């Protein structure tokens, strides 16, 4: 299903359909995350992938254009890049532990420590929140800073000089100085 959706995205020229399909892709992957026990991730993927990012893509389309023009470039170099990367990936998977295996390194080293210790140390039911906000809380601070960066980035890029002025306080200052 996921693969079919992804391939449909490659083939489609209507960008509206592409945006919708990418939303579908996100929803499908959220379902997959649920079956893999990652409920928090599924929740976020559904909200972000199917929600916000689809809205953003549609918003961009409204400001740009709806159809993709076919490109004249040959697909040989991209195919080569993809093939090499794919080969490296497959090579890497050969020595990976079997899916779901309980004695894989990932399940025996740090992971179970969190499960055991958070009962005592943090004492909240959702271990994902415990790790996110406390054990690896600094990553989350970084993540918030990334969101903040994106926010001011978008404001710097596309805010302030369209027909409607929205940075009222800012414009006042400008008139002060000039």
């Amino acid at each position, binding site marked *: 299903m*996921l*693969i079919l959706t*992804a391939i449909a*995205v*490659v083939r489609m020229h209507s*960008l509206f359909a*592409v945006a919708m399909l*990418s939303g579908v*892709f996100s929803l499908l*992957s959220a379902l*997959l*995350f649920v079956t*893999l*026990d990652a*409920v*928090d*991730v599924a929740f976020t*993927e559904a909200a972000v*992938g199917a929600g*916000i*990012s689809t809205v*953003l*893509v549609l918003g961009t389309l409204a400001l*740009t254009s709806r159809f*993709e*023009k076919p*490109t004249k*470039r040959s697909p040989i170099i*991209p195919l080569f*890049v*993809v093939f090499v990367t*794919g080969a490296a*990936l*497959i090579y890497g*998977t050969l*020595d990976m532990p*079997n*899916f*779901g295996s*309980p004695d894989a390194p*990932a399940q025996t080293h*740090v*992971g179970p420590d*969190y*499960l055991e210790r958070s*009962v005592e140390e943090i004492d909240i*039911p*959702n*271990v*994902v929140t415990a790790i*996110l906000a406390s054990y*690896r809380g600094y990553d989350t601070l*970084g*993540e918030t800073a*990334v969101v903040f960066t*994106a926010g001011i*980035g*978008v404001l710097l*890029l*596309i805010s302030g000089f369209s027909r409607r002025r929205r940075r009222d306080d800012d414009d006042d200052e400008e008139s002060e100085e000039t």
Partner: protein
Amino acid sequence: MGFELTQEYILGHMNYWLFSVLMMTGLYIVVAKGNLVKKIVGLNIFQTSVFMLYISTGKITGGTAPIFPLDMEVDPNVIYSNPLPHVLILTAIVVGISTTALGLALIVRIQEEFNTIEEDEILEIERAIVLAENAIHGDSMGGRA
């Protein structure tokens, strides 16, 4: 370091291979397609597939979501899946949407300045600018390289 292509091995690795195929589809869209919006969508697919690879690392057969009962009476017989990849991917999803938002904002600006979002047409326009510059400032190996 040999490995046997047993049925168990193939089934245990099938998911990784499927995710790899998905990743490569996403990467292909980014590299091969000329439409700027479509590149961003491809990037999203690429990243989401990477997330799947991560999340599948944390799954333990017979395990359940890493949320304890409300009364915190943890039953030692219940297997919980590894929560760490989930946390990492939550962070990565947020980073991904931030990049998407920024990329789309850039596309809006590009549309306004170049009046197109097709890479081929932009290249064309830029080549014209470089030619004009070269006419004034002498030949350079400019362009988009």
